[in-house]
């Protein structure tokens, strides 16, 4: 299976492990990630303003690229996925916005939201299937107590993202179980770490992140996994005393294409 792949700015720099192990794991699972040529940064956060057009064009171009190749568009970073999916939804549902955008698309051709947008986790669940993933696991992570941290961007707004139940999600827990580990369920797994507020008020991010880590630890977590570089940064900077790793690192370890993830 071939899919169009949008890595995003951070995955080529500070979050290389998110990217590298996404590729290595996809190989094992029979998925070819075809990186979009000349992709541009998604902007990190989706602007909900109806009259913001230019800030959404890089996403539309990525979506159009996948549509031309007749492939689903996959990303690993929660933020990129959120921006791409919300932009796609706006192109499908807001004709006035889509009309304005398409005035900028003369060279690429008009786009109206045809592309299927998947987060890598959704790709594992819906295209690869967790049953197939389970069969490919060579290092069963038995006995490891792992907490999934969803954060905000994978789940909300749910009318658009539709990944899972936004208040009681299971996709990451099912992923952890498919790798043979124990999924630790805790209340704050879909509460905000503070996000970009650490550029203005690091104390706020620290307070939010510490509450999440304490909640996960109280439920028995020995490790936290995330799909978002900024969540990982905020959790680690808040003084996490258990490992916080990308879900792709854990995946690659279970599939036998990475050394132990505890470091």
């Amino acid at each position: 299976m071939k899919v169009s792949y949008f890595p995003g700015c951070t995955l080529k720099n500070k979050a290389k492990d998110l990217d590298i192990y996404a590729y290595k794991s996809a190989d094992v699972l029979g998925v070819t990630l075809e990186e979009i040529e000349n992709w541009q940064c998604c902007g990190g956060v989706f602007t909900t303003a109806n009259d913001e057009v230019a800030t959404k064009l890089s996403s539309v171009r990525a979506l159009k690229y996948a549509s031309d190749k007749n492939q689903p568009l996959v990303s690993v970073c929660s933020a990129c996925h959120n921006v791409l999916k919300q932009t796609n939804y706006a192109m499908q549902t807001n004709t006035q916005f889509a009309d304005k955008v398409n005035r900028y698309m003369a060279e690429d051709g008009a786009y109206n939201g045809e592309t299927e947008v998947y987060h890598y986790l959704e790709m594992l669940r819906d295209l690869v299937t967790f049953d197939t993933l389970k069969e490919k696991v060579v290092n069963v992570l038995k006995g490891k107590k792992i907490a999934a941290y969803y954060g905000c961007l994978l789940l909300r707004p749910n009318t658009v993202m539709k990944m899972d139940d936004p208040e009681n999600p299971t996709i990451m827990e099912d992923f952890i179980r498919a790798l043979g580990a124990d999924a630790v369920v805790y209340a704050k797994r879909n509460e905000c770490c503070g996000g970009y507020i650490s550029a203005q008020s690091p104390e706020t991010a620290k307070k939010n992140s510490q509450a999440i880590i304490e909640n996960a630890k109280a439920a028995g977590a020995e490790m936290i996994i995330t799909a978002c570089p900024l969540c990982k940064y905020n959790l680690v900077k808040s003084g996490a005393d258990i490992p916080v790793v990308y879900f792709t690192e854990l995946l690659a370890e279970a599939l036998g294409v990475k050394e132990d993830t505890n470091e």
Partner: protein
Amino acid sequence: MNNRYLQKEILRISGADVSKCMRCGKCSGTCPAYDEMEYHPHQFANMVESGDIEPLLNSQSLYKCLSCFACIDRCPRGVEPAKIVEAVRLLATRKQGANHMTANDVPAIVDEDTPQQLLVSAFRKYTK
């Protein structure tokens, strides 16, 4: 002050329907930035409905919203408070010289682990 022009602009930019609000306060109750805010999500909805826009435009609360969309998802009436905050913030930052952050702020923010995503997101939210 009842500013109908700014009210209309905010409703146009956000697409939100403030008249649906039933004052339950769930948006503010679930807001992770509640403690930092002078005006809370439910107040944004209510003040925009009554046209009391100037205090919001001049409040630091505009820069406390984390865009986590919790208020949008958890509102039982579909009011979408975060979209209202975003529209008011854009009215503020679209003015010349009103950026809330500049490139000069970057050295003090970054350390060796800072993800690019942090700076990109912050600039998108705090500047125009």
